C-alpha cells in the first residue's frame, strides 16, 4: 500500500499579501503592541498617582499587628498577630465554607435533579418549586433569610436545646443487656460514665459539641483504625479480583465498613477507652470548652449550598436526559437491571455532560462566599478586603491580592475538573 516514494514531507507555502497567515501575523503584532502599551500606561499612572498623593504602598503592612478579633479561626490567632496571619485565617475560612458548600450542594443538587425526573407529581412539583425559588432569588437574600429568619429563632444559651450523650449511651446499654450482649452493654455503660454531662447543645450561638481529648494509649486505637481502612481497601481489591476471576460478587462495602469500625471498638474496650471528652459547660455568657460551629458559618453554608444546588439540579437533569434512551434500552435488553444500568452505563456518560457546567457552579459558589460578610462570617473578603483594607487603606495591594487568591482558587478548581473531564472524555474516530 505505502510506497517509499510517497513518504515525502509537505512543501513549504508561498507568501502573498492576501495570505491569511501573513494577515494574522500583522493583526497579532498590532494587538500585542496595544496590550503592552495599555498595561504599561496603567502601571505608570498608578505609580505617579500614588507618589503624588503620598499614599503608602507595598506589602509591608502584612507584618503589622492586626488588632481585631475573628470569630472563627481554624488556626491559632489572636489580635496581636499580624495582618498576614489574619489573611491566612480568612483564606482558610473561605476554603472551608467553599469546600463544604461544594460537597453539600452537589449532594442536594443530585437529589433534587433526580427528583425532577420522578414520576411522582408532588415530588416533581416540589423539586421544580425548589429550583425556581432558589434560582430566582438573589443569594444575598437567601443568606440573610437563613441567618435572620431561621437561625436567630434558636433559643439563648441558657435555654439551649441539649442532647445528652449519657442517656443515649445508657439507653443503648440497656438494650444491649436486654438481648444478652453483656460486653457491649458494659462498654456502653462505661462510655456513658465518661460523658457525664449532656454533650451537644444548640442555641443562637451555634452548635456546641464535646471536644475529644486523646490520652496516650489512644494512638493504638488510631493505628488499628488506619489498619482497618487499609484492610478495607485490600478487601475491595480482592473482591474485584475475585469477581473477575470467578464472577462471584462480594458485599465488600459492608465488610469493609465492619473492618474499619469493629477492631478499633474492641481495642478501645480492651484498653478501657483512653479517650475522654471535654464537655462544654455554660459559664457566664457562653459555653466554654467543646467545639462550636457558629451560626454565621451555618447560615452561609446552608444558603450557598441550597442556592447552588438549584443550579446543579438543572445540570444533573440535563445530563441524565442527555444520555439517549437507547443506552438504557440496550442495557436492559442485555438483562442488566436498573441499578447496574444507572451505575455502569448512564452515570458515566452523564458525567461528561455534567462536569463542565458543574465546574462553573463550583466557582460561583466559591465566589459567592464573599457575601458572607453580610452575616458576619469572617471569610477572606470580610477580613482582608474588608477590615484590613479599612484599617490600612492600601486598596491596590489588598484588592490585587484578594483577586489573585480567588483567581488561583478558580483556576485550580477548573484545572482539576478539566483534568477529570479529559480523563473521561469519549474517544472519537
Amino acid at each position, binding site marked *: 500500500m505505502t510506497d517509499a516514494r510517497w513518504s515525502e514531507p509537505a512543501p513549504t507555502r508561498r507568501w502573498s499579501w492576501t495570505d491569511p497567515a501573513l494577515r494574522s501575523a500583522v493583526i497579532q503584532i498590532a494587538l500585542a503592541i496595544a496590550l503592552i502599551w495599555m498595561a504599561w500606561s496603567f502601571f505608570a499612572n498608578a505609580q505617579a498617582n500614588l507618589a503624588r498623593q503620598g499614599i503608602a504602598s507595598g506589602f509591608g503592612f502584612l507584618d503589622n499587628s492586626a488588632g481585631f*478579633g475573628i*470569630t472563627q479561626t481554624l488556626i491559632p490567632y489572636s489580635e496581636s498577630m499580624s495582618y498576614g496571619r489574619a489573611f491566612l485565617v480568612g483564606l482558610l475560612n473561605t476554603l472551608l465554607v467553599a469546600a463544604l458548600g461544594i460537597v453539600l450542594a452537589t449532594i442536594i443538587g443530585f437529589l433534587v435533579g433526580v427528583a425532577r425526573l420522578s414520576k411522582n407529581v408532588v415530588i416533581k412539583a416540589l423539586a421544580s418549586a425548589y429550583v425556581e425559588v432558589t434560582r430566582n432569588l438573589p443569594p444575598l437574600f437567601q443568606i440573610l433569610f437563613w441567618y435572620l429568619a431561621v437561625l436567630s429563632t434558636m433559643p439563648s444559651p441558657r435555654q439551649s436545646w441539649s442532647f445528652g450523650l449519657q442517656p443515649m449511651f445508657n439507653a443503648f446499654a440497656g438494650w444491649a443487656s436486654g438481648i444478652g450482649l453483656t460486653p457491649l452493654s458494659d462498654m456502653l455503660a462505661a462510655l456513658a460514665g465518661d460523658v457525664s454531662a449532656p454533650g451537644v447543645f444548640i442555641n*443562637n450561638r451555634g452548635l456546641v459539641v464535646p471536644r475529644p481529648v486523646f490520652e496516650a494509649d489512644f494512638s493504638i486505637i488510631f493505628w488499628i483504625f488506619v489498619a482497618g481502612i487499609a484492610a478495607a481497601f485490600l478487601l475491595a481489591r480482592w473482591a474485584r479480583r475475585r469477581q473477575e476471576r470467578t464472577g462471584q460478587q462480594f458485599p465488600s462495602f459492608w465488610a469493609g465498613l465492619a473492618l474499619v469500625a469493629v477492631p478499633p471498638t474492641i481495642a478501645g474496650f480492651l484498653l478501657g477507652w483512653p479517650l475522654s471528652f471535654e464537655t462544654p459547660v455554660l459559664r457566664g455568657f457562653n459555653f466554654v470548652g467543646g467545639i462550636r460551629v457558629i451560626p454565621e458559618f451555618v447560615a452561609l453554608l446552608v444558603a450557598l449550598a441550597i442556592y447552588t444546588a438549584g443550579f446543579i439540579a438543572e445540570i444533573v437533569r440535563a445530563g441524565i436526559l442527555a444520555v439517549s434512551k437507547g443506552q438504557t434500552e440496550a442495557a436492559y435488553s442485555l438483562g442488566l437491571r436498573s441499578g447496574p444500568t444507572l451505575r455502569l452505563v448512564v452515570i458515566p456518560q452523564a458525567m461528561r455532560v455534567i462536569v463542565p457546567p458543574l465546574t462553573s457552579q463550583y466557582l460561583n459558589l466559591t465566589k459567592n462566599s464573599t457575601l458572607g460578610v453580610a452575616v458576619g462570617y469572617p471569610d477572606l473578603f470580610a477580613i482582608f478586603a474588608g477590615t484590613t483594607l479599612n484599617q490600612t487603606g492600601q486598596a491596590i495591594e489588598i484588592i490585587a491580592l484578594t483577586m489573585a487568591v480567588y483567581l488561583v482558587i478558580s483556576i485550580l478548581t477548573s484545572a482539576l475538573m478539566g483534568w477529570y473531564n479529559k480523563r473521561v472524555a469519549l474517544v472519537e474516530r
Partner: protein
Amino acid sequence: ATLDDVKARGALNCGVSQGLPGFSNPDDKGNWTGLDVDFCRAIAAAIFNDASKVKYSPLSAKDRFTALQSGAIDVLSRNTTWTMSRDTTLGFNFVGVMYYDGQGFMVRKSLNLKSVNELNGASICVQTGTTNELNVGDYFRTNNLKYELIAFATIDETIKAYDSGRCDAFTSDQSQLYAVRLKLTNASDHVVLPEVISKEPLGPVVRHGDDQWFDLVKWSYFALVDAEELGVNSKNVDQMVSSPNPEIKRLLGSDGKFGEAIGLPVDWVARMVKQVGNYGEIFDRNLGPNTPLAIDRGLNKLWNKGGLQYGMPVR
C-alpha cells in the same frame, strides 16, 4: 486646585455615610439629611451661596478612603474617627472634630450588668470597617477579658443579630447606640453601659496636597462653631451683619476680608449660617431633643458651656 475644580463643576462632591441616623440618611422625600450632610451643605453655601449645590457620594466604611484618595470626592464628611495613621499614611488631613464621640456598649437589662468589665466571655456584635472593631480588641486585651467579636457589613444586620440574641452586647459609637434603640423589639429592655472605652473624634477629611482647600474646609467648621458662640444664627444673621461686636463683624465679613484668604467672598460665613445654621442649630436639627434620636450634647457643648467644641478665632 480643588476649589477651582469645585467651582468649575458647579457643585461640591461630598462623601457621606450610606445611612447613619442623624448624620446622613435620606428622608421620605429622598433628601439627604444629617449632621455630616449639613456640613457639606454649609461649605456649598460658602462657595456658591447655594446650600443645595452638593453631590453626595454615599460611601460604605471601607470604600471611603479610596474614594477620597482617588479624587472621587472633595471632602469626606462621614463620621470618620481622627487617627494618626489615617492622618498620615493614608495621605489625608482631618480638619477638626465635628462630633466628639466615644465607643459604648449596649446590653440587655436582664443581664444585670453594671460595667463592661463584666462582659468576660461575651459575644459582641460590631459593624465591620470601623475603629470600633479595634477598640474592642484593645480594651478587652488590656483588661484580660475574653470575647467573641462578630463583625457585620452593615449596621442593620448588626442590630438584628443583637436583637435576636446572637450577641450579648452591641458596641458602636455612642451616638449610634441611640439610633439603634429605635429598631429594637423592646427598646426598654436594653441599657447602655456607663463606660466609654475610646475616644472617637469624628470629623471631615480632605486629601493631602491642597492646603488652600484644607484651610477652606477647616475654617468653615470653625466659623460654624464661632457663629454659635457669638450668637449668630440663621434667623438673626441678617441683623447681626450690622452688629457692633467686632468679632461678629470680622466673622460676617463686615470688617476685614478674611474670606478672600481661602478663596471665598467676604460674606461666606453669613451665607453658611443663613442657609444651614450655626453649629448648635445643625446639631439640634439632626440630633437634638426634638428628633427621634434625642442625643444629649455632652462633650459637644461649646467650650464655654462645659464642652469641647472650640472655634478658633477669626482675626
